[in-house]
C-alpha cells in the first residue's frame, strides 16, 4: 500500500479558463517544455488560484494544445487552466501576462463554456507566415505554384522514431507568395496531421518541386490556429466560449 498524503484531497476545479498567448522575438527559440515551465511558474507568481491534481507531487491543472515548433514564433498558442476559485478572466490574463517575460504575451482569456466541446477539438489547422530573407517574390511565386500543382510531394523528416517520409503537399490547404521590403513571404494554411507537417517540411517540399533554397535561415510565425471552415479560413477556437460567455456572466472573484 503506497503512502498517501495526509489531509484532505485538493480542492476541485470550479472554473476553466482558455488562453491565447504569443511567443515573439528571441523567445521563438523556446521549446514547448521551456514554455510550459515558464507558464507554470508565472501562474504561481501571479497567484492564480490553480486547481491541483491529487497525490504526492500535485501538478497544477494546465493543458496545452498543439505547441509551435522551437524556433517558430506564434501569435496563436492556446492553453486551458483549471482554477480552484472563480476569477475574472481579464484579471487573470493581465496578472499572468505581467508575470511572464516580455516575448511571452498573454493576449486573450475567456471562460470555457459548458457543453461546447474541448479546445483541442476546435483546432485542426494553422495559418503560417514564413519570411524568406534573400529570396525574391519572383523566385518564390513559381515555387509555390509548382507545389500547389503537385499531387504528392514526399519529404524526409526527422521524428522521434528516426527519419520518415511524409507527404507535405497533402497537408497544405492553401499557399501564396507575397513580398515585403524586398523579402519574399510565404503565407499558407496547413492542416494538422500525424506526423505533423511543419513550415520546415513545406520549405523542404519547395526544394523538392522547385529547388528553392533560401540563402539564410527563414523565420516562421504561426498567425492563427483553429478549425478550417468551409471557405478555407481558420476559425477562432475561443469563439464558442465567447458566444456562451456573452449570454451568461459568472460571478468573478478578484485574483
Amino acid at each position, binding site marked *: 500500500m503506497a*503512502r498517501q498524503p495526509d489531509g484532505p484531497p485538493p480542492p476541485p476545479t470550479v472554473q476553466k479558463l482558455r488562453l491565447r498567448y504569443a511567443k515573439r522575438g528571441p523567445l521563438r527559440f523556446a521549446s514547448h517544455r521551456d514554455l510550459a515551465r515558464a507558464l507554470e511558474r508565472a501562474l*504561481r507568481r501571479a497567484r492564480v488560484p490553480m486547481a491541483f491534481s491529487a497525490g504526492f507531487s500535485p501538478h497544477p491543472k494546465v493543458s496545452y494544445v498543439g505547441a509551435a515548433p*522551437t524556433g517558430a514564433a506564434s501569435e496563436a498558442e492556446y492553453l486551458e487552466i483549471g482554477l480552484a476559485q472563480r476569477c475574472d478572466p481579464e484579471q487573470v490574463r493581465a496578472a499572468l501576462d505581467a508575470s511572464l517575460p516580455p516575448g511571452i504575451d498573454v493576449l486573450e482569456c475567456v471562460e470555457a463554456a459548458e457543453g461546447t466541446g474541448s479546445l483541442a477539438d476546435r483546432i485542426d489547422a494553422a495559418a503560417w507566415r514564413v519570411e524568406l530573407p534573400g529570396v525574391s517574390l519572383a523566385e518564390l511565386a513559381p515555387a509555390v505554384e509548382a507545389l500547389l500543382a503537385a499531387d504528392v510531394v514526399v519529404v524526409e523528416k526527422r521524428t522521434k522514431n528516426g527519419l520518415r517520409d511524409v507527404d507535405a503537399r497533402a497537408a497544405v490547404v492553401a499557399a501564396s507568395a507575397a513580398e515585403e521590403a524586398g523579402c519574399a513571404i510565404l503565407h499558407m494554411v496547413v492542416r494538422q496531421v500525424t506526423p505533423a507537417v511543419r513550415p520546415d517540411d513545406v520549405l523542404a517540399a519547395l526544394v523538392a518541386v522547385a529547388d528553392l533554397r533560401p540563402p539564410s535561415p527563414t523565420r516562421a510565425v504561426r498567425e492563427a490556429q483553429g478549425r478550417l471552415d468551409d471557405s478555407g479560413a481558420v476559425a477562432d477556437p475561443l469563439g464558442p466560449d465567447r458566444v456562451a460567455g456573452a449570454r451568461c456572466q459568472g460571478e468573478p472573484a478578484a485574483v
Partner: protein
Amino acid sequence: MNGETLYPRLEPLLAQVQKPIQYVGGELNAQVKPWEDVAVHWALMYPDAYEVGLPNQGLMILYEVLNERPDALAERTYAVWPDLAALMREHGVGQFTVDSHRAVADFDLLGVSFATELGYTNLLEALDLAGVPLHAVDRDETHPVVVAGGHAAFNPEPVADFVDCAVLGDGEQVVGDVTDVVAAWKQQGRPGGRVELLARLARVDGVYVPRFYSVSYGPDGAIAAVTRTRDDVPARVGKRTVMDLDEWPYPKTPLVPLAESVHERMSVEIFRGCTRGCRFCQAGMITRPVRERTITGIGSMVDQGLRATGYEEVGLLSLSSADHSEIGQVAKELADRYEGTNTGLSLPSTRVDAFNVTLANELSRNGRRSGLTFAPEGGSERIRRVINKTVSKDDLVRTVTTAYANGWTQVKLYFMCGLPTETDEDVLEIAELAVEVIRAGREASGRKDIRCTVSIGGFVPKPHTPFQWAGQASAETIDSRLRLLRQAINADRRIGRSIGLRYHDGKPGVVEGLLSRGDRRVGRVIEQVWREGGRFDGWSEHFSFERWTAAAAAELTPLGVDLDWYTTRERGQDEVLPWDHLDSGLDKEWLWDDWQEALSEEEVADCRWTPCYDCGVCPTNGTEIQIGPTGRSLLPLTVVGR
C-alpha cells in the same frame, strides 16, 4: 568598445543549433542597463554550459551586487557548445553575453567563476571566441581584465598565464573594490596603461596578479621560490571574508531561466563556511569561519525569493545544512508557513545522523518522500577516522533504517575512493554496509521495494587541505577498487538488486588532480589540450583522457616533470607548494599536523562546539565564528495559495 548588440548576426545562427533558448537571455529577473550610463562594465562568466552555469549562486550574487551599483553593469556569459562555436567562427560572431548579446571583448572586466578546474579549457575557448589574446601579457588596455574567482582560484597557478587577476574568498565586497579601482583609472584617462591598472588591482585586499610574481624551479622539479617582482604588491595575498550574511541577502531576485537547468529550484544559503574539519574537503577549509544567516534572515530570503521566482522548491544551502544552530526551528517554521501551498523545502543532507531524518521528515511533510542522501564518504570506520568524518557503522545503519521506517524509499549514500591510506578492504566495506542497510531497512519498513544507491567517485587531493601533500590514487587503483566493489555488491542478487552503484572511472580525476595541484608549467598542457579541441572537460562525452596525457607528455617532459609527478607523488613537508603565497588563513603547520594526525587515524573536533585548535583562520583574517541561536522566530506571513 561600444557594447553594441550582436543579436541580429547571432539570430540566424541560433536557428541551426541545439537548444537555442540557452543563448537568448530574457530570463525572469535578468537585468539590462544602458551601456553609456555606467563607468565600469563587467562580463561574468560561468565556464560551463548554460544549464549548469545559470543556477550558480556565486555568479547570481555578483550579478545583482554589481548591477545595484549606479556606476556599473554586469551581464552574463556561458560556455557555448561546439555547434554554435563553429558557426560563430564561420560568421565572425564573438563570445557574447546572454543579457544584451554584447561582445565580451567590449567589457572592462571578464570575471570567471571556477567551481571546478575542469572549466579551464572553456575559458580559453571563450577568450579565443571573444577575440581576446589568450595570454595576459599579450593584452593591452583595450582588452578586458580577466579575473578568476571561485574555489579553484585558491590555486590559480595553472591558469596564471591566461588570467590577469585571481580573487581569493568571498566576492561580494571585493567586486566593489575592483570596480572602484577600474572606475578611477578610466576616469583619470587610463594612466600607465594596463600594467598600472593591474598594479593598482594588486593592492586591493584579496586580489592576486600573477604577473607580478615570478616562480623559479629547483633541479628536482619542485618550486625553489616564488618572489614578487614589485615592492608595492603583497608578498602573500590573503582571502576576503564577508561577515554578517544578513547584510548580504543575495540573490534577492534569483534568475529563472526558460531553459531547463540542473537545479529546478531556488536556493537560499543558510550559512557559509564549515568547521567539521573533513580533511578531504577544500570548501570546508577555505571558507572558514562559519557565518550563519539568522532564522529571520533566512525566512525573509525564502519569502522574497519565492515571490520573485515562482519556484516550487527551496533548497536550504550550505556545506552541512543540518549544522545550522537553529535548523530545527527553521525547518519547522518554514514547513508551517508553506503548509498547503505545494511548496517543497529541501536540505542537501550530508551528515549521517538521526536528526537529519527528523529534519527531512519535517521539510517533506507538505510533499512527497522519495529520496534522502547521506554522505559517509569513507567505507570503513578506519578510513572515516582518517578523513575526520566520524560515524560508526552501527549509527550509519541505524540512521538509514530510520529513514526507511519513516517512509523514505530511496537512500543515496555518497562515498569516495582513493582516499589516503585506503586499501581494497576499506572500499569493500561499502558493499557490506549497503547490504546491511537493505536488510535492516526491509525489516524496519516491512517493504521490499526500498532502494539504496551507492554513489562513488575518485578522491582528488586539493590545495589548502591537510591532504594537499597526499599522493593521489592512480586511475588504475580507483578502477580496480570500483570493480571489486561492484562484484561484492552483486554477490547476493536477492539483496544486490536493491542496491544501485553509480561511479565515475578514475581518469577524469587524474586530470582534475593535475589541474588542482598544478603550477604555472601546467598552463602549457591546458593550452595544448584546448588547441587539440579540448572543451567541456567535465562532460564525459567531450572529455578525452588521451588528449590530456598526450599533451602532458609533450609539454611537461622537456621540463623534467610529468603527470605522475603532479598527481600520484606524495609531497614532503618542506616542498614549496604552488599556492603557498596565497593565504586561505589556514596555518601551514596546522595543516601538516592535521595531515600527520590523519595518517595516525586521529580525529579532530568541530571548533563551533569545542575549544579552538588554532587552524589559523580567525586571527589571520580578523574574523570569528558567527552562530546562533538568535532566539528569534519567523513572523507570520500571508503566503501564496493560502
